């Protein structure tokens, strides 16, 4: 095993650990909705929400980085260049995440000054990590980009997947710099901030997970490189073609010119079309392999990714993306429902699929199966479906009672929050969140245990007669 692959295992372990932190913080966030005075002035809702969302970003990012460190030496047939630096920075990255989390839990917030921005909270939604940690993330990502490009350069070898990956890493890195500006005009600030949030989630991450899925399919099903690369080019073209200007759906209500209503609505409404093609592809792959594989957990999580992405991003997104609907739905639990479903489908399932693939190869197990993975698969997906269903009911209630009927006044907000449909939705989210958390616990158990038990052949009976 290459050192890079050992590093990949560490990254994936850290990712799964942070997945757990995200789940706990999410459960806590859900609890505040049914018990609003919970931990009042001790640990308020906004801190639990920050922890929930920031760990979501970091666990997926660590999962992606780990996956690349796993596949890269196999792709190029050599150790990753600069691996020692990458190993050191992994520990720095983990320590930084831990320090930031402790500061969020213990210190929580500070005054409106430079000290707070540098050492407590940068104050920008989803990238709240204080400035020193944000600089650290840039260093880690730059090292990662160096590892990938220098290894390809030194190997004097380039594949289609690597080309796409390297070209994708450039905007992925540059866009993160959008976390830094201090713009006082809120419209300007949001305008650029969405470049980071949207272009990561609906452009650069989509391409990155496309590259990772291409490698996964080659190893999991033996799909030829020609096929996965052709499909990757088509997918990248379609995803970027619709996703980049789909950015406009975030510009509807932040003070940007009116033409964004048309541009954003049009391109984001096109976004389900490539996802439909991916669903047909998933059916083709599953059918031609007759659902037979030596790694069923990974295979099922890949399928869950294709369908979850289509329903979460496609169906849920299309319900609320046209401006006339979005006027009422944006910023409600409806959006939260879409966010949960789309992130899970597009990225969460993919990282879990890769974790199972990596573990099978690490443990050298030819038949990689267990009962636990089926339980975790079922509980995680049922839990997620229940959560997004509950959030959808709550969100539609808000859109109707708070926005369409109440005119978005504070009184209307209170009325909608007390509506029994809203409250039932939030209870459902909490209950199914607990189901999801149980699924996570079983997933961790399974990841630790699967493939470790070696079937022991019965000892031959020695006849004494």
């Amino acid at each position: 095993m290459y050192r890079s692959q050992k590093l990949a295992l560490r990254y994936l372990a850290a990712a799964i650990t942070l997945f757990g932190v995200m789940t706990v913080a999410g459960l806590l966030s859900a609890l505040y909705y049914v018990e609003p005075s919970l931990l009042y002035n001790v640990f308020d809702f906004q801190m639990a929400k920050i922890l929930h969302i920031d760990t979501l970003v970091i666990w997926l990012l660590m999962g992606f980085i780990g996956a690349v460190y796993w596949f890269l030496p196999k792709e190029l047939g050599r150790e990753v260049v600069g691996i020692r630096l990458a190993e050191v920075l992994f520990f720095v990255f983990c320590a930084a995440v831990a320090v930031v989390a402790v500061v969020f839990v213990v210190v929580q917030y500070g005054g409106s000054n430079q000290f707070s921005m540098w050492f407590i909270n940068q104050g920008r939604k989803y990238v709240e990590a204080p400035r020193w940690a944000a600089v650290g993330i840039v260093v880690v990502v730059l090292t990662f980009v160096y590892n990938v490009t220098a290894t390809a350069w030194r190997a004097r070898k380039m594949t289609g997947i690597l080309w796409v990956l390297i070209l994708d890493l450039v905007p992925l890195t540059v866009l993160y710099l959008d976390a830094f500006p201090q713009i006082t005009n809120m419209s300007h600030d949001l305008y650029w901030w969405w470049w980071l949030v949207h272009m990561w989630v609906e452009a650069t991450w989509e391409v990155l997970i496309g590259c990772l899925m291409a490698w996964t399919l080659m190893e999991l099903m033996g799909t030829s490189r020609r096929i996965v690369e052709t499909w990757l080019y088509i997918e990248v073209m379609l995803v970027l073609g619709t996703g980049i200007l789909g950015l406009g759906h975030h510009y509807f209500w932040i003070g940007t010119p009116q033409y964004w209503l048309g541009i954003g609505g049009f391109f984001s409404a096109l976004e389900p079309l490539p996802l439909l093609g991916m669903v047909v592809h998933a059916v083709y792959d599953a059918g031609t392999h007759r659902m037979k594989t030596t790694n069923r957990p990974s295979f099922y999580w890949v399928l869950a990714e294709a369908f979850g992405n289509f329903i979460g991003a496609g169906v849920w997104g299309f319900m609320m993306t046209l401006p006339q609907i979005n006027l009422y739905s944006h910023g409600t639990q409806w959006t939260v429902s879409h966010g949960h479903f789309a992130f899970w489908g597009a990225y969460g399932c993919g990282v879990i699929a890769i974790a199972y693939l990596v573990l099978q190869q690490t443990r050298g197990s030819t038949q990689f199966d267990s009962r636990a993975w089926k339980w975790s698969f079922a509980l995680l997906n049922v839990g997620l479906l229940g959560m997004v269903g509950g959030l959808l009911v709550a969100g539609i209630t808000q859109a109707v009672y708070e926005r369409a009927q109440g005119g978005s006044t504070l009184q209307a907000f209170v009325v909608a929050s007390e509506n029994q449909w809203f409250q039932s939705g939030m209870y459902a989210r909490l209950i199914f969140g607990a189901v999801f958390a149980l699924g996570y616990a079983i997933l961790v158990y399974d990841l630790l245990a699967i493939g470790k038990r070696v079937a022991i052949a019965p000892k031959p009976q020695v006849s004494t007669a």
Partner: protein
Amino acid sequence: MTHAGLISTAVLLGLFVLAGGGYGILYGAGMLRASVRLERAAYLCYATQAAVAVAVCLSSPLNPLWKLFIAASCIAYGFIPPLTWRLLEAMHHPTVR
């Protein structure tokens, strides 16, 4: 937009894409198994999608341009599964004509 119009339009738009997904899945499954029944079910899904598009155009309070867009994308959905399938077949079996 009234609150009733909001809910019905959002639900119709969700159904529109969901029916498109059902069409894609069943079309793929029908081709894989060479099953006429599955293929018919796929076209039924597509017909449902078209009916939803008509409902959006006739009953929703959306702007006329968005209605035109829904109608046009309904036509596009009709081509995606067969075209994708043909592309996949061409990639997997390049010599088969």
